[in-house]
């Protein structure tokens, strides 16, 4: 299966590839990227999609990867920073649905468990999970090394991990609470204060369009939207 297939002409040509398609020889400066694998010294495609060649300026190494229109979901690995939605809270643990891994959105949510002892570093025995997370909160967490087989164990025992987006009880939908301290958040509409384990997200990295309910607030707070999509 080595016949080329391309759509378009010249610089707009897209090269299509199929599983098992031979993409070239695997040399020192030709790396196999995602969507490809090496067999018998040759790089072959593992997906049906478009061939992308990326040349790294510093090392002059060419990375060949294949991008598929139906992107398969990736698997969360130990140490990845993930975004999750809390589904249920009880006295021992917090259950969540893993929505995104680093920058990738999962097409199917995976289940994650945040144990009481992994919520924060200090005062581990006096934590009440209900005062840190509530169902419906969007949190940032890290994946712990695998302990039990059937679900991912998470931790929020760092300053930048914790609740990012949440709504107060009784507040109308879409009004997100604003952090007051590392353990409290306040709803801007009803002025109700609730305790949460707040994530200390560095302001320059916030993409304000996700966090704000009304788009006009950017001018009031004066924060620059420096993160580009």
């Amino acid at each position, binding site marked *: 299966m080595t016949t080329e297939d391309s759509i378009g002409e010249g610089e707009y040509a897209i090269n299509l590839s199929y599983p*098992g398609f031979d993409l070239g020889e695997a040399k020192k400066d030709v790396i196999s990227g995602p969507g490809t*694998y090496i067999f018998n010294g040759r790089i072959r495609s593992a997906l049906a999609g478009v061939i992308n060649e990326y040349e790294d300026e510093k090392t002059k190494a060419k990375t060949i990867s294949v991008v598929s*229109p139906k*992107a*398969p979901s990736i698997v969360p690995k130990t140490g990845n920073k993930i975004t999750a939605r809390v589904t249920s809270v009880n006295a021992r643990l917090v259950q969540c649905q893993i929505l995104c891994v680093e920058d990738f959105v999962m097409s199917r949510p995976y289940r994650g468990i945040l144990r009481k002892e992994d919520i924060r570093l200090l005062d581990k025995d006096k934590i009440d999970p209900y005062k840190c997370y509530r169902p419906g909160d969007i949190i940032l967490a890290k994946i712990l090394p695998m302990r039990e087989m*059937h679900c991912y164990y998470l931790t929020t025992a760092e300053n930048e991990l914790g609740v990012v987006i949440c709504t107060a009880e009784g507040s109308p939908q879409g009004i997100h609470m604003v952090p007051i301290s590392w353990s409290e958040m306040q709803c801007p509409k009803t002025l109700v204060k609730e305790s949460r384990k707040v994530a200390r997200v560095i302001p320059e990295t916030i993409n304000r369009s996700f966090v704000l309910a009304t788009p006009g607030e950017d001018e009031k707070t004066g924060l620059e939207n420096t993160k580009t999509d």
Partner: protein
Amino acid sequence: MPGPELLSSQGLRLDGRRPDELRRIRCKLGVFTQPDGSAYLEQGNTKVLAAVYGPHQAAKSKLSTEGVVVNCQYSMATFSTSERKNRPRGDRKSQEMSLHLRQALSAAIKTELYPRSQIDIYVEVLQADGGAYCASVNAATLALIDAGVPLKAYACACTSSVAWRGNHPEALLDVGHVEEAAGGVCLTVAALPSVDSIALLEMSHRLHMDYFEVVMSRAMQGCKDIEIILDKAVREHLAEGWTKPDVITI
């Protein structure tokens, strides 16, 4: 031993094909919207539907840390055979076919990329006219490609049998139901032609070792030809479906 009626004096088979001719294969990818990937394949009169649910979190009982668990379910519709079958799921033949499907497809999927996950493959045979397993493997390969699951190569399957022309054997490619029922030997090969490897090899009845090479090489050639046909269908599907946007909502 198969009787001479499998091959006429002009060298034509019972359905008019030449010994090295495949049945007509028509296939389409992406026939359903609900599963991650789906495909419909016709091989002669055998019609098969395949649906794939891409890597998701595995059920507690089925986890494996080494790679993805491939879960196959093979079932035949009640109206698929000439006699109406009342137990389409869970019977011994379906379970055996499911295991064979799993063996062939696990060889093709890059399982090490998705530890602790599960891929579900559902195959439904709508009309069985011989070679239902082969059509299932081919349809499942197309459905996996449609779902975006990384594969080492296409997994193709083909059957072959042997008939006697005078005193020397002539291998018949892609056995139909009538030829199978005539009592001849039937060799099923599921292979990855691009990387020259065989995933599954199965034979009913007995065949003398001297004739095995002839039958085997014809089946392998059949797999290579099927791969070309599947590849063409995938190219057409990619070329026409490229501009569809992918919408993911949380």
